[in-house]
């Protein structure tokens, strides 16, 4: 199976090289490569793989909205690379591969953020790259400290490693109080690259962090989790309140990402009780999928200067968490698992935050509302909306999928 991945990577490389003549040639090759990589699942956890493939394809398609690209077709390859890593991460149990996927997802975004219809956006690119580099360093150091410390346990080192990892993650995904780059980048860079940074690129860092934290669980996890809870809470409130008075749509969606990452990071506290971990992981993954699909749909609409009214409101309502849209189930799973591990107050604050978010999501939907036009953006919006509607069938199927996947989530560091 690893062979398929290698062939896929070669295909992506080849396609990117070919695109120097014809930009579009990379698109089908990228899609083929993605489907090949998805074979690694061997039929397991198709729920997750399926969503990731669809989201990656949406990201690929959205690049088509751009009139031109400074990196001409290589952008397709980069997205395919990110997508491949996002599929692969779930199925690997090797620390080196895990950290590699993290870097493989992070670095392509450095290039993508410069891409623009016009001239490369250097100023904003530099801002983004600066913080991403810092985030990657902190994250990788934290991951290594935790892994090393696991077999020679020292409590202080564990908590420091945990803190570094979470800080790195927060900086990487734009969680408050380390979100400062996000509003500027989201509002000033081109919406399409931003939609990639805001959607599929967020999944791997979170999954990597989860994998490492699960593998290195210790008796001190409960106290270390306070860091995650603290950052999660600050992030929820900063994101949602910050979005309330923001005018620019890019900024509003940046704060929305900050809030979503807050929900996700606060759910890390469920690690203290493995019994409820599958539910929490299911909630986290669904929340990432909601965030990805919604952001792609909305940023595409921003790029096209508006989207279909119905689609925009549907995406907004899913973000808010209206049943039976997917955004409801993701928050429900997180909240229920929080309540189960004794953090009812945190669950209540999460619900309160959902309430605070209502005005600005509806405002975004209203501002983006327009007529149904046959365009790439509308097609992407329809697919994103369909993803939100998948949970018309209550996603207990997703939870049972996660339960079966938990063996991959927990890898053994003892052999190191």
């Amino acid at each position, binding site marked *: 199976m690893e062979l398929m991945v290698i062939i896929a990577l070669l295909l992506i490389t080849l396609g990117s090289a070919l695109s120097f003549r014809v930009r579009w040639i990379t698109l089908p090759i990228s899609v083929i490569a993605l489907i090949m990589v998805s074979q690694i699942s061997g039929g397991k956890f198709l729920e997750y793989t399926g969503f990731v493939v669809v989201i990656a394809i949406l990201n690929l398609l959205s690049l088509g909205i751009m009139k031109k690209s400074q990196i001409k077709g290589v952008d397709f390859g980069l997205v395919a690379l990110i997508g491949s890593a996002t599929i692969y991460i779930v199925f690997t149990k090797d620390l080196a591969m895990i950290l590699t996927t993290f870097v493989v997802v992070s670095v392509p975004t450095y290039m993508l953020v410069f891409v623009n219809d016009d001239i490369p956006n250097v100023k904003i690119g530099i801002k983004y790259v600066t913080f991403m580099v810092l985030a990657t360093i902190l994250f990788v150091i934290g991951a290594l400290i935790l892994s090393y410390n696991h077999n020679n346990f020292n409590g202080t080192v564990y908590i*420091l490693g945990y803190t570094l990892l979470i800080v790195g993650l927060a900086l990487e995904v734009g969680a408050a109080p380390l979100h*400062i*780059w996000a*509003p500027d980048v989201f509002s000033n860079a081109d919406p399409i690259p931003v939609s990639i940074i805001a959607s599929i690129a967020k999944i791997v860092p979170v999954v990597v962090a989860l994998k490492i934290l699960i593998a290195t669980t210790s008796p001190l996890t409960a106290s270390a989790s306070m860091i995650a809870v603290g950052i999660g809470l600050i992030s929820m409130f900063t994101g949602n*309140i910050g979005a309330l*008075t923001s005018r620019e749509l890019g*900024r509003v969606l940046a704060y929305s990402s900050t809030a979503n990452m807050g929900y996700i990071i606060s759910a890390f506290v469920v690690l203290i009780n493995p019994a409820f971990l599958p539910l929490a992981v299911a909630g986290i993954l669904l929340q990432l999928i909601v965030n990805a699909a919604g952001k792609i749909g909305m940023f595409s609409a921003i790029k096209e200067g508006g989207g279909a009214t119905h689609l925009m409101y549907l995406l907004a309502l899913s973000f808010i968490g209206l049943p039976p849209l997917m955004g409801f189930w993701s928050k429900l799973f997180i909240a229920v698992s929080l309540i189960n591990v004794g953090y009812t107050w945190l669950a209540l604050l999460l619900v309160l935050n959902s309430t605070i978010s209502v005005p600005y999501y509806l405002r975004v939907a209203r501002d983006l509302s327009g007529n149904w036009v046959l365009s790439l953006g509308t097609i992407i919006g329809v697919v994103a909306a369909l993803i939100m509607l998948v949970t018309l069938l209550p996603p207990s199927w997703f939870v049972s999928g996660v339960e079966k996947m938990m063996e991959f989530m927990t890898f053994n560091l003892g052999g190191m």
Partner: protein
Amino acid sequence: MTFPAYIPVLFLAPIFLSLPIALAWVYRPGAAWARKLPILSVLGLFISLIISLYILFRVPSESVTIQWLPGFDINFVFTFDYLSKYMGALTAFIAFLIGVYGLEYMKDDYRLGWYWFFFNTFTASMLLVVYSDNLLMLLIGWEGLGLASWGLIGHWFRDDDDLSYVGDSKRRIGPLRLFWSPTTGGWRAISTIRFGDMPMFFAIAAIYALTGTLDISQIPWGDMFQKIGIAGTVILLFAFLLGPFTKSAQLPFSEWLMTAMTGPTTVSALLHSATMVAAGTYLFMKITWYIKPWELEGVPGLEIIYLLVLFLGLISALYGALVATGLLERKVLLAASTMSSLGLMFAAASTSFWLGKIGLLVAFWYLMVHAFAKATLFLVAGHLIHVTHSRFCEGDLELGKKMKIGFGATIIATTFLAGIPPLTAYWVKSGMDELMVELIHDVGALPLILLIAVSVVYAAFLAKFLSLNFIKGTRPHHIDLHGGQLMSSAYAIMVSLMFVLLYVIIREIDPSTSTFFEAGLEKTSFLVGIAVLITYSGGLIMPRIRALANVGFVLSDRLYLPFLNDYIIPGIGWVIASIVDHANRGIDSLFHRWVPEFFERISRDIRKLQTGSLPIYIQIVSGIIIAILIIGALMGWR
């Protein structure tokens, strides 16, 4: 279980047969053919009368259950016991006669559909109250009474006819104008009654929660009182009795009854004899019948309630009687006298706690005697208002000669009701005297003294009513004797029932009357009867005493009780309204101003960080990372 088909007909016939006129008036108000439809309504009342008479004479004492919610033990349960058989026949009879009278009295009215629909609903509701054994069914009737009374008291909703007002338009005391329109009267009635109904609902709910049944005859009253203790018993029964107290206009809830006179006289007659106000006392008698307090002397708290009813009744009776002596409006005078009689009924019924069932029988027979007499007096008063176009007492012997039937009916009704030996009410009143004499042992002499005082004053104002309307009153400016045959025959039949009752009592046809018939032969009773005769004669000779005019004003201002209804309680209401208003504004400000402003400020502060300058961003992020790491390190230190 099958049930006799006449039961639903009993309640539904009046309502359904009033629908033609009600609907006709919606689509063709005032049409000549529509004015003939009230006959149908009266036919409905007649059907009820026939069925109730059938129940009285032919149906054995039993209860009939029509399943409704058997799982909750809530069903249509009708009981035909001593009280309900008599009461049902009385209600249907009086309603029918008043209906006949109303055919003529209301024939030129502008709102016949409304009138007949509510009149018949009123009767059907009362019949439901009378025959229901289940408290929930009873409540449906009870509410029907409240609704229909509101509709009927405020019937003349245009407030455009001085004849329909109560009070004197010139009379003012401080901020109050003692002058009430029909719409005000309707409002005062419904608001007062709701005040009592609310606690009654809760009491009924509590009874259901405690015992699991609502059938009055099945509720284990004694066990329930034992279970909830002295405080529970007092609170429960007091809450329950607030319903009857307000409906039967006991102090301090009497004001609505006085201004209920803004309705058509037929309504006053029905309201004051067999329905509405009687419903309150009837319900008290009915539950006492089944509580059997005389068997529960050990139960704590019960005596407190029965003492309260005894004295509240007697004091209300005295108040009503005194007020009636000061009043000069025909119908309001009679209203005050009704209140007085209701007080006596409550008082007599309450003595059953000490003296047994006899108290209830005396009270119930007084209710019947009073009903026929009072209905007669109201019908005559209505006729007088038609003839003289005045709602104040006026009329001399001249008028008496012209309205012979009315004059005669008034003489019979007043003398038979006052308690002059050996006329009908004398025997029942003697029963009351006897009860109060026996009560000296348990409660003291005060009840007896109060009763005698009430009886004496009562006779005086009855005589005054007779005298001021037919003998010694001022000569009316206006006499219009046109028509009136239907009205006079209605009250002539009504008053003749006083003889029937007298015959039943003296011949002891109903065995339960024998006890108070014997009391009438006692010396004390006879002495009270003589005193009553003396004051009656006094009232007849001197219906107005100029020297006491000021006292009369105080009394006719009803001892300033209107202040409670029109000033103090609305004042409290306004205070509450202003508190609610302020709280409302506070909540509005909280959610429309303070919370949004608070969030906007924080939001702006959060966004202030975004200066766009990379060096500053790096400084901020580095600072935060170091701070978090220090926190992490400190946490790991322990």
